[in-house]
């Protein structure tokens, strides 16, 4: 699901993994969506220290299910399995000009549903922009 977006790769090769480690000792379990363009949305999630420990000890299944929903209807758009400690991924939404939200489903090691995180609602822009005209000098 990773979009092939040139801007995702930056000039400087910078490993931000250590900075994401803080998302494993968050004050709160949290799932967030941030729209980057009609073709790309960032999803990230955070776990409290105790919750992360439960994953580490194997009481929860290591895979969590990311579910994208249409915000207006709650209709499911797609599901994708991710590792609990991926902490972020970029995906391409099926259409722009609409609001989405998401859920992250956590299961017990035995596969029983345990809990879910719900995200904010995000507006994904419609259409493709005209070619950038370079108005921004920065």
């Amino acid at each position, binding site marked *: 699901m990773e979009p092939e977006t040139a*801007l995702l790769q930056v000039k400087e090769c910078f490993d931000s993994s250590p900075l994401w480690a803080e998302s494993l000792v968050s004050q709160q379990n949290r799932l967030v969506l941030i729209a980057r363009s009609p073709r790309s949305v960032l999803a990230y999630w955070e776990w409290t220290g105790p919750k992360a420990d439960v994953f580490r000890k194997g009481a929860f299944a290591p895979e969590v299910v990311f579910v994208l929903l249409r915000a207006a209807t709650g209709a499911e758009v797609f599901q994708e399995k991710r590792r609990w400690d991926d902490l972020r991924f970029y995906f391409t939404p099926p259409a722009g000009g609409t609001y989405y939200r998401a859920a992250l489903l956590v299961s017990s090691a035995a596969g029983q549903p345990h809990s879910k995180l719900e995200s904010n609602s995000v507006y994904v822009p419609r259409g493709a*922009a005209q070619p950038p005209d370079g108005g921004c*000098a920065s």
Partner: protein
Amino acid sequence: MSAKGLLSIVLHAHVPFVRHCEKEWAPEEDWFFAAVTETCVPLIALTERLAHENMRAAFTVSLSPTLCAMLEDELLAKRCRGYVENRLAFVDEELARLAEDSPEHKTALGYAALYETALEIMDRYSGDLITPFKQLQQNGLLEIITSPATHALLPLLIHPEAVRAQVAAAAEDYADRFSRRTRGMWLSECAFEPRLTQQLQLAGIKYFFLENHAFSLANPRPRCGVYAPARLKGGVYAWAREAGAAARLGPGGYAADPVYRDFGRDAGFDADYETVRPYLHPDGARRGLGVKYHRNTGAVPAAGKQLYDPAAAAARAREHAADFLKSQLALTERIYAEQGIRPVITCACDAQLFGRRWFEGPQFLENLVRAIRQERLPIQTATASECLEAGQANCGDDIEPEASSWGEGGYFEPWVTTASDWIYPRVNAAAEKMIELANRFQFQDMSSVEKRVLAQAAREVLLAQSSDWADMMRQGEHAEYARGRVLGHCENFFRLARMAADKRIDETVLRELEARNNVFLNLNFRAFASASTF
């Protein structure tokens, strides 16, 4: 002659808050000093020159709140004076070194004039450069507007309270500084999404600016396209940049002409090290000294750049002003013929293009206003508020502009990359905590010091939200500095949040942070409350 169309020249000036009182010097402060000497002062000077000849620039100038805070800061005024004196001393040495009939000597004379003007204007206003902007606005020569408090990219903030705090803090800061309410707001990077409209309306904003595809993809499309203001639900108005004018005035337009001064080559890098050493920072690292002897030349490597000729560049700036007016008059005639309206052409640009990047940009602007007057052209420059008054009748139905920005790709990708995405968990967590604190304490009786802790906490969150940090991380050059700023502001915030929550206040720490990050002195922490009456 009555105008057939209006030119709305909108210049957005912004520098992130880079005041480092904790250090003897900081290279990042040079960004501010360069903006002062190469953009703000030339803009003030040209507006005053035109006024002395009874001509109105009538530009709309967006001054970001962080830039405003630095423009009237005493420490930075003193340091900026030192910066200008240093540049002047270097130029003097260059003038003594260069043969009087050499092309470089003519160029160096121009730099002497630039820095002498900067010194004269800074001294005339005792280092406080808000005062001249305020006076120019009071005299009806410019309209000043604001932008989000710390230039946050509002569509990336996930909490409505955080958006409101950015907008409200900016609006209140503007009212404190300019003794009136702002009518307009320049959205950072022209970044918009539909839910912002209500927040802008609540803060009393009458209009803002968007990239043109926000209109071409709007629902419904505006009746007059980008040539009139579009009314949004709630009675807020939006303008979209005119693509043709934007292309002419953008970095790849006139500014790229081979005759104009080249921005890249600089005596700070080109000259003998021993010559420039006395004018560098104490670390001795080579850096730009603002004295540049070469012209764009064309698609050649830096070593192949030819020498700059100020007279040829000045002539080209006059030609470009004439060309721009010719194209805008033709556009005006066409729109009038097709739509039967007097169009407003919104030419919105980064102010730092004019003077800093495009050295002759201020001459171009001055030539533009002079040519309109002297040639009695049927077009005139007008402030955004004047354009709104003139163009309101052409609005048509309420529209909902599309989410967009003027950044690369047209949306928000440049500010969310694998180098910068780690910012958002931190900044959003800080904002969430700030909202929680504001909700908890907003109706409580608090001591003065407790209010100060929460106000400083709010400042730290706002500073962490600046879009500049993500931009620097993407571009790489100042990434380490940017990472330090995000981490530092978040760390400061959580430290203050703990003090507020536990009611165990370390006044030494508080005073130090207040002295260091002294933006928004009248900030009310309740700006972050969910049911704020701020």
